[in-house]
């Protein structure tokens, strides 16, 4: 019996299921199909990511180098072959930008199908956008490349530290998470200048920003480091305030602790969810406590919706309200 349980644990689904929240409802990509808002269309063989825009969405297949682009309003979709390993994307308006990691390229696909591509530095791992400007973090050299969409060319490059595990921006600042060094490094978007390194937990891996909430998943500490309700965390960063909180661990006793090591954190409004990718366990959490939502959920197979969480498990989409 123990043996069977062990094997079941190993059988945790690891890929090919993606869930995202769109303007037309929850999108699920699974088993080669995409379902959203009562519409079902062909998908991709290996759904490895979803990009959501206002009325458009794109499902990425980083293994087969395909992108399925959906017009959610018109309910039409088309598949495009792209360069090697499309791992991330953003929509700005109806234009899709895709980061092709192993081609070291950023590709633009317009609503009319027009395509353009620019080279990035090595190992481009994260793509973010703010104010119509794209930011690509290239992991190996530790570059952040600023790419305005109007020129679609690298305008400025910040040389920072390589090998971050997450990159987020909030419209004013950018934040890079370094698990091995247990640090967060921030920089100002306006000047593309580093602020300073700040110690952060034991092994910080994933960062979520929303409004005045910052949450940092630290699987080693089995804890989400969180700050909320303060003026704004960007100001807190700028003043070194957060460094003190995280580094000294002042928030330790007040932050949520988990029975397993969570390594992903999502924040939307007042809803907060953490995820342990090793066991597929989803938690909701507050500053005071954490509770299991579901187990056996594949990475990427969950998303926060306007009023709760949706996740795909055992061939079913589950929607749950979060208070």
């Amino acid at each position, binding site marked *: 019996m123990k043996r069977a349980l062990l094997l079941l644990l190993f059988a945790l689904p690891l890929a090919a299921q993606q869930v995202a929240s769109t303007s037309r409802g929850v999108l699920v990509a699974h088993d080669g199909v995409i379902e959203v808002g009562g519409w079902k269309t062909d998908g991709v063989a290996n759904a490895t990511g979803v990009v959501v825009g206002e009325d458009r969405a794109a499902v990425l297949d980083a293994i087969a180098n395909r992108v399925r682009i959906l017009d959610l309003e018109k309910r039409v979709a088309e598949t495009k072959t792209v360069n090697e*390993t499309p791992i991330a994307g953003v929509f700005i308006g109806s234009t899709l930008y895709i980061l092709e990691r192993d081609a070291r390229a950023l590709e633009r696909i317009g609503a009319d199908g027009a395509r353009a591509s620019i080279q990035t530095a090595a190992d481009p791992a994260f793509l973010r956008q703010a104010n119509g400007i794209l930011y690509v973090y290239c992991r190996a050299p530790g570059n952040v490349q600023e790419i305005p969409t109007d020129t679609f060319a690298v305008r400025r490059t910040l040389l920072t530290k390589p090998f971050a*595990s997450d990159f987020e921006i909030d419209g004013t600042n950018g934040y890079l998470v370094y698990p091995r060094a247990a640090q967060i490094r921030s920089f100002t978007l306006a000047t593309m200048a580093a602020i300073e390194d700040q110690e952060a937990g034991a092994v910080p891996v994933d960062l979520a920003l929303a409004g005045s909430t910052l949450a940092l998943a630290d699987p080693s500490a089995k804890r989400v480091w969180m700050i909320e309700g303060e003026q704004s965390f960007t100001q807190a960063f700028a003043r070194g305030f957060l460094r003190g909180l995280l580094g000294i661990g002042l928030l330790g006793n007040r932050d949520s602790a988990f029975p*397993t090591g969570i390594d992903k954190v999502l924040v939307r409004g007042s809803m907060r969810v953490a995820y342990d990718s090793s066991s597929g366990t989803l938690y909701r959490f507050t500053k005071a406590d954490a509770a299991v939502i579901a187990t056996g959920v594949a990475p990427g197979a969950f998303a926060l919706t306007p009023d709760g969480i949706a996740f795909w498990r055992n061939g079913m989409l589950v929607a749950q309200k979060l208070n």
Partner: protein
Amino acid sequence: MRTSVLAIAILCCLPLAAQNRMATDFEMQQMERQLAQKRDFRSQLAGRLNLGDLRIARNEPALARAEYAKALELAQKDRLDARKDSSFTRYASDTAYAGFAAAKLGDRAQAFALLEEALRYTSDDPKTWNLYAGAMALLRESRKAVSAARNAVYIGGEPLDLAVYRYTLASALLDVNERSEAETLLAKIVSDLRSPAFDDLKKSIAKKEAFEIYSTASGDESTYLSLLNRAQLRLGALHETRGDVAKARATFRTVLDARSDDAMALAAMARLSAGEERERYYAEAFAANPFSTTLIAQYRKETHPADAKTRGVQLALDQMARGEYRAAQTTLDALLAKFPHNDVLRSLRREVETARNDASNELRRVMTSWERLSPDERVALDQRTFTAVAAFQATHANGQTVIEAGTVDGVPFRFSEPTAFNGTFTDRARLAFHILGVTQQNGADALLLEPLKLEALP
């Protein structure tokens, strides 16, 4: 611990045939002993992966998959244990191992997901990138492999580690036909490994009399030996492809100087030789690895001396080439009794079965349709020499064997008159003949044959 991580990827980009060697019986025994004696995770994982590769080399894919599945299970369990222990470096490396094992099993989605997970924690670790590259190469995702290998080389490491990363990159580049850069890298690896910088390691290897080549090596000595072997094999193949026979031979010769039973080098030397030398290399290559599909395909493209004293699979191939399907079947059946899971033997056995039926069917068809053959078909048949194993009852006198009738491939035949052959043949021999027509034998139809030559079966 350092090289055990690296070495997993050393051979992952090499054609499987290259890893084939019955000569690696020793390696198999070593791995089985390692599995029995060393219970730690890395020894167990390396043992399973090596055994899987050796099984693949012997064309025993079902047994190989079982080993890879055990490797995956081991890595999955250990990575979860590491996670519970909040040991994230171990978690990341175990996750990468699990991804690599999943790639060995051909599960691209799981391999990709696991390796991406490993990178979240250790994108600064060239070993993780190297494993990533190896896994992608196994899955024929060559461009991804090149990119990952470039990252490993970019991050770098100690000289032996860096040589491993360069090898992985070179292998991936070859998969996308970027030969020039690959050759430069391979030449650098060989030159670096032969440089004084590795003198201490070379002394240690000499002292231990180490010679084993593993796909998952543990320790610097094993990594050094395996890497040098593989890099030279790749380099030799590149010289050969370019038509530089002298350079290719010299490179393969160097491989054989270090290990005389390297099947890939022996097969290459056979390709690059002629006459007796070529046959000698073939014999050695088959002795080293009789189940290499590459070697078998290569051997079958060429004509070999009819009187060659061959054994095992090579004998079966010779028998098949001569149309001695019954004899080939006997040879293969004996081998299958010894290697029941071997896919190459099964495949050859099926081929022989089909060929036997075809040959027998052709002779029967000639016999039953003789009267309907057109003049042109008769002329064509007159000019054709058949060879088959004949079964007969003979009389013997004065060192001669007299035969009048029998069967060829199960079809009855008769000569126009009893024919004496020099030598003593008992009940079966290889007969070369022309078909003269159809006659009667014991009241049934039989082929009327003109014997051309009778030879003893090997």
